[in-house]
């Protein structure tokens, strides 16, 4: 099972067990649902905006270790960022996660997002890793419809 630790990195397991910002936000400005019914991943992303800045971000719901830890890492990275910065991080994450498994990654630029690079070898799990990110983006864009990455 050691070979799959590349997928279930320690950081991922840790965020899955103790997710950051894992709470409903009563006074959120935006809330977006992310739902992958085939997997059974179902999260809500809450955003509190101050002008152009993400003053607070949280999530709740249930899903697999990949989707949950990805949401957790994302919320911890985006708090305090501007919408523009958040969108740029989404692009960075999206590019990395959809790249070929053997493609080198820029660890410095990706920061904590890099722990998800192991997902690239498991195409069916990519949708788990990007669910929270797509939901966050929809929230920033002010879209109301639930998001699915299946």
């Amino acid at each position: 099972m050691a070979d799959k630790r590349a997928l279930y990195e320690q950081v991922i397991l840790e965020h899955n067990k103790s997710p950051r910002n894992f709470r409903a936000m009563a006074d959120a400005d935006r809330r977006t649902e992310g739902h992958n019914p085939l997997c059974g991943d179902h999260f809500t992303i809450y955003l509190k905006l101050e002008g152009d800045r993400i003053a607070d971000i949280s999530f709740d719901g249930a899903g697999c270790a990949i989707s949950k830890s990805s949401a957790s890492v994302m919320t911890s990275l985006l708090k305090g960022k501007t919408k523009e910065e958040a969108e740029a991080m989404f692009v960075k994450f999206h590019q990395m996660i959809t790249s070929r498994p053997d493609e080198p990654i820029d660890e410095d630029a990706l920061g904590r997002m890099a722990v998800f690079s192991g997902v690239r070898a498991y195409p069916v799990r990519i949708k788990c890793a990007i669910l929270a990110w797509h939901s966050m983006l929809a929230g920033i864009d002010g879209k109301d419809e639930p998001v699915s990455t299946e």
Partner: protein
Amino acid sequence: MAMPDHREALDEAASAPLSESDVERIRTDFPILHATRQGKPLVYLDNAATTQKPRQVIGAVNTFYATQNANVHRGVHSLSEAATDAYEEARIKVERFINAQLTCEVVFTRGSTEGINLVAQTFGRQRVGPGDEILVSHMEHHSNIVPWQILCEEKGATLRVAPINRDGELIVDEFERLLSPRTKLAAIVHVSNALGTVNPVKDLIRTAHDHGVPVLVDGAQSGAHLPIDVQDLDCDFFVCSGHKMCGPTGIGVLYGRAEHLDAMPPYQGGGDMILSVSFEKTTYNSLPHKFEAGTPHIAGAIGLGAAIDYLEGIGMERIAAYEQQLLEYGTTLLQGIDGLRIIGTAKDKAGVLSFHLDSAHPHDIAQLLDDEGIAIRAGHHCAQPVMQFFGLPATARASLAFYNTRQELDALGHAIEKVKEVFD
């Protein structure tokens, strides 16, 4: 086709329970069971999704294409006659296997899903009107829900749902209570793919018939695991899928009582389903060809015939008894794992072990099990109402076949313990 030696040996012991050595011999018939995954022997426990194929089935498909390939019911040349004979012989095998009264009551389809859609779009459209009802159960597969929803929407009818209890058993009294003069059809799963529940379909059919309601039985999960006798069940329709009973994909069976099939309009128009065509009037072909428009899946039907020969060579009673032992063994084993809950605890159950772990999501379980060479299913199993009933987004599911062994279940147990180590 010559019978393999071991088959004769099995026939001699046809009434004896399947022994470990019988199963070892059976396993030699399945090439894929000797494959490795991730450097480990494949432990295939996703039989409710599709079963593996013995070389007898693979060989029959191969032989057809290599030596008999021609279209059926058309050519005067002898090759076409041979293909037609082989195709119709497969129909006779199905007739015998499910104990239909007449060969013409066996319609080849693409699978259970198409069989249900066929009945919905012909029998259903003919009989169901505004204000009418169709009765299903809470444990149906989506394929026995959606075709009826489409029909109900078109006709202004209502879909009624017979509830289940916490063990995943149909509440029979509620089923009976929901039968009314408005009920035009009951469509009930024989064995639940998500829970393993075996429904008392014979009793349900008798009850429905007492109310004048015809019954379709969804046999997708029962065909390869229980002896089927459509006359004894007294069902009006029965559907099953070839690929879930060791046959090829893309072939299935709809059994319908001749009186129903005769009265039903065709499902699709095309070649083979007509006697004569002019622009003024078309005369439909006799049963079962009225429902088999276009060139059928000839090789698939022949492969299914070979699968039936194979299953009968072992004996359906013996298969059911052996799988029951495996289920009991697996149930005890999984119940011994801390933090594991089995979903679906009906008294009458077939070889399905759906479960939930406190510490890991079903997808993560299936992913780590795959590293051990163990194939199980994770998800909602196309039965979302069942998942909603149990308040779960998904379950992990190990589903058994007669070629599985206790050692494979032991491997499953060990691998689940490893999953817990990773996630606890």
